[in-house]
C-alpha cells in the first residue's frame, strides 16, 4: 500500500502541494485528477523522490515503474538499443516483453528515437513500463499525445495491468478514461485534494437539480434550457427531484468550487 501523509512541497512562495494525504491500496487503480498546475506531477515526483518534499511522509516498499509526464528518451539511440540499456538499468524489466510490445505498437526497432512521433514515444515508454515487474505503477498522463487507436491500445494494457492485480497511481486530463479505469479518484486543485473517494461513491455524491429558470440556488450552474436551470449540487436527503450528474460535470463543479 502507498501511504502519503501531509505531503508539502513549495517552490519559494508558491505552494505546489499543500498538506496532501491519501492512500492507494494494493491492487487499486487510483487517479489523480485536476487542472494544469493542480500539483499532480509534483505529487508523483515527490513520491518518487525526484523532487524533495518540504514535509510529509511517503510510505511504499518495493520497485516502482514510472511513466513521466514528459516522455523524454535518448534521441540518439535506436529503439532496440534503448530497450537493451533500459533492461540493464531497470530491476525486473523483461526485455523480450518490451520488444514484443514495441513490435505490437508497430514501432521499428531500428528507428532512431529522435525520429519517433510524440505518440510513438509515449507508446515506447509505456512498453518499458508495462514490461517492468513492479509493485506500483505510477503513470503521469499515460495517453498523452496518442491518437484514438493508439490510446485504446494503451488503455487496454493499463486495464490488463489493473486486472492482474497491480497497483496503479495515475494522472489524466481525459475524464472518460478515468471513468473507465479508476477505482478511486482524488480531485486536486492548487495543491489540495478537494474530493476523494471510490469513483462511484464520488460521482453519486453529486446530483443535477432542476430549478425554475432564473432561480438561484447554491451550486454549480451546469446548463440552462428555455424554462429551467440545471445545477450540480452535493447530494442531500431533502432533495427529491434530481438526476444523476455526469462525471465530467461533477469534476468541473468540484474544480469551480461553487457546489454546496
Amino acid at each position, binding site marked *: 500500500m502507498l501511504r502519503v501523509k501531509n505531503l508539502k512541497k513549495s517552490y519559494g512562495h508558491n505552494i505546489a502541494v499543500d498538506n496532501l494525504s491519501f492512500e492507494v491500496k494494493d491492487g487499486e487503480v487510483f487517479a489523480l485528477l485536476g487542472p494544469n498546475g493542480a500539483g499532480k506531477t509534483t505529487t508523483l515526483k515527490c513520491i518518487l*523522490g*525526484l523532487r524533495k518534499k518540504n514535509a510529509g511522509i511517503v510510505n511504499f516498499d518495493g520497485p516502482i515503474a*514510472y511513466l513521466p509526464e*514528459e516522455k*523524454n528518451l535518448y534521441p540518439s539511440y535506436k529503439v532496440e538499443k534503448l530497450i537493451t540499456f533500459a533492461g540493464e*538499468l531497470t530491476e525486473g524489466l523483461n526485455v523480450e516483453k518490451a520488444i514484443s510490445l514495441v513490435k505490437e505498437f508497430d514501432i521499428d526497432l531500428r528507428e532512431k528515437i529522435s525520429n519517433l512521433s510524440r505518440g510513438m514515444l509515449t507508446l515506447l515508454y509505456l512498453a518499458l513500463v508495462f514490461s517492468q515487474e513492479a509493485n506500483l505503477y505510477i503513470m503521469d498522463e499515460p495517453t498523452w499525445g496518442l491518437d484514438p487507436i493508439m490510446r485504446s491500445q494503451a488503455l487496454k494494457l493499463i486495464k490488463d495491468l489493473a486486472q492482474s492485480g497491480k497497483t496503479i497511481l495515475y494522472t489524466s486530463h481525459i475524464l472518460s478514461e478515468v471513468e473507465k479505469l479508476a477505482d478511486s479518484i482524488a480531485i486536486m486543485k492548487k495543491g489540495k485534494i478537494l474530493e476523494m473517494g471510490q469513483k462511484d461513491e464520488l460521482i453519486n455524491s453529486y446530483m443535477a437539480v432542476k430549478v425554475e429558470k432564473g432561480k438561484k440556488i447554491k451550486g454549480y450552474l451546469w446548463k440552462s434550457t428555455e424554462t429551467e436551470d440545471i445545477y450540480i449540487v452535493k447530494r442531500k436527503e431533502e432533495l427529491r427531484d434530481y438526476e444523476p450528474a455526469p462525471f465530467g460535470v461533477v469534476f468541473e463543479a468540484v474544480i469551480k468550487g461553487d457546489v454546496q
Partner: protein
Amino acid sequence: MKKEFYDMRFRALVLFFIMLTLFLLIAPLQNYAVESLKNLERSSNQLYEKYIGPGYSQMLANWSFYMYSQWFGKNFGQLVPIIAIVLAFPLFSRETENGTMEFLLARRSRFRVFMSKTASGFIVLFSSLLLLSMLPTLYSFIAGKDFIGDGVPMFTTSVLAGGTLWFSVTLFFSVLFNDQVKPILASIGTLALTTVLGLLKSLSFLNTYHYILGIDIFNYGEVDIPYTLALIVISIILLFSGYFAFKNKEI
C-alpha cells in the same frame, strides 16, 4: 556503466584522434624545429635570446628532450584541461537538459547514477591520458628513435592529477547547471581566470599549467608532490560537493 561508455564513445574517440594527429604532426618535425631555432640563433634575434636563450636548439636536437618539451611540456600538456572539460561537461547536464535524468533516477538510486557517471568518466579520462602519455614511447619504438623514458611516469603523474582536477571542476558544474553550455563556459572561465591570476607571483599556485606542463620536472627533475596532493584533495572535495548537489537536485 555500459550506457555511459556508449554515450562517451564519440567524444572520447574524436578527442583521441585529434590528439594523435597532433602528435603525428609534431613528432616527425624535430629536424625542422631544430633548424628553425638554429637559424634564429644565427640571426642573433633579440627576442630569441631573451625568451628562449642560447643553446636551446642544441637541447631540442636531443630526441628525448624534444618529446618531453614539445609533447608533455607544450601541446599535450596545454590540452589536458580541455580534454578533461570536454569529457566531463555533458555527464549530468545533458541528461538534465534532455529530460532523461528522470528515466535514470526512476530506475537507479542517485548514488548509483552519480558513481556510474563519475567512474566511467574517470575511466575514459585516465585511459585517454595514459594512452596519450605513452605516445612518445610507442612512436620512438616504432620509428627506432632513442627515447629515454625515465621522465614519462613523472609527466604522466602531472597530466593525470591536472586532468583529475579539471574533470572534477567540470563535473561539479555539470551537476549544478541544467544545460550543457553553462558547464563548459564555467569551466573554461575558471581555467582562464586561474591561469591569468596565476601570472601574479603571489597567486602563482592558481596557475595549474605550471604543474601540468611539468615545469618543475624540467627544472628540478621531480614532480611537485605537495601540489599533486593539493590537486587530489581539491578534486575529492569537488566530487563530494558534486554528489551533495546531485543528491539534493530537483528533477
